[in-house]
């Protein structure tokens, strides 16, 4: 099929939609509010451990 766009036409492609991991959402929705908040506590602790590890003075292996 012949294109109607001229030689200088720019065709814009739409930005890709962000993909959301619905599995994770469904797993969270299966928990009760206390369990969800406890999970957040554990994630915060893990992030803090990571932060301390990354700031460690030990030389990389």
């Amino acid at each position: 099929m012949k294109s109607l766009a001229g030689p200088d036409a720019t065709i814009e492609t739409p930005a890709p939609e962000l993909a959301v991991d619905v599995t994770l959402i469904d797993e969270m929705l299966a928990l009760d509010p206390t369990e969800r908040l406890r999970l957040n506590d554990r994630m915060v602790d893990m992030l803090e451990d990571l932060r301390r590890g990354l700031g460690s003075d030990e030389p990389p292996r």
Partner: protein
Amino acid sequence: MASALTNLLAELAAAGAEFIVVGGLAAVAQGAPLTTLDLDIVHRRTPGNVDVLIELLERHNARYRGRPGGPPLPLDRLALLGPGHSLFMTDLGPLDILGAIEEGLDYEALLPRSRQAKILGRTVMVLDLAEIVRLKRLSSHPKDHAMLPLLEETLRRRGP
């Protein structure tokens, strides 16, 4: 220090404080799979409720965050009666006590847009996920927009 935001929230409820959980932890409580580092609450700004909050803050060795090193400042009761934001570090984690949030929405305005949640056996009010999404859409912060798809999908899958 292990994160104890869940315990902090339950302690606030156990103390009889009147507040609404907002921000990241409100979204987490309703199923959003994200991680938040602090507890944000909008409190009822009555003298009695402020006294309850101050008593809890003192019990948990609260100090103002973001202030230069030096002796801890006394808790500012007048500030807690106003619409401003008071940011604390307690021995159970960071606690932000907000007199009002976007659009000047305070406790009374947010209460009809909140729902009950049971946390460690205590009933707390959390800002409804639909309202959280609405406010994030209005925000000009890139961070708020970045989490919108996740919040919107959680809302869709949760239903009304």
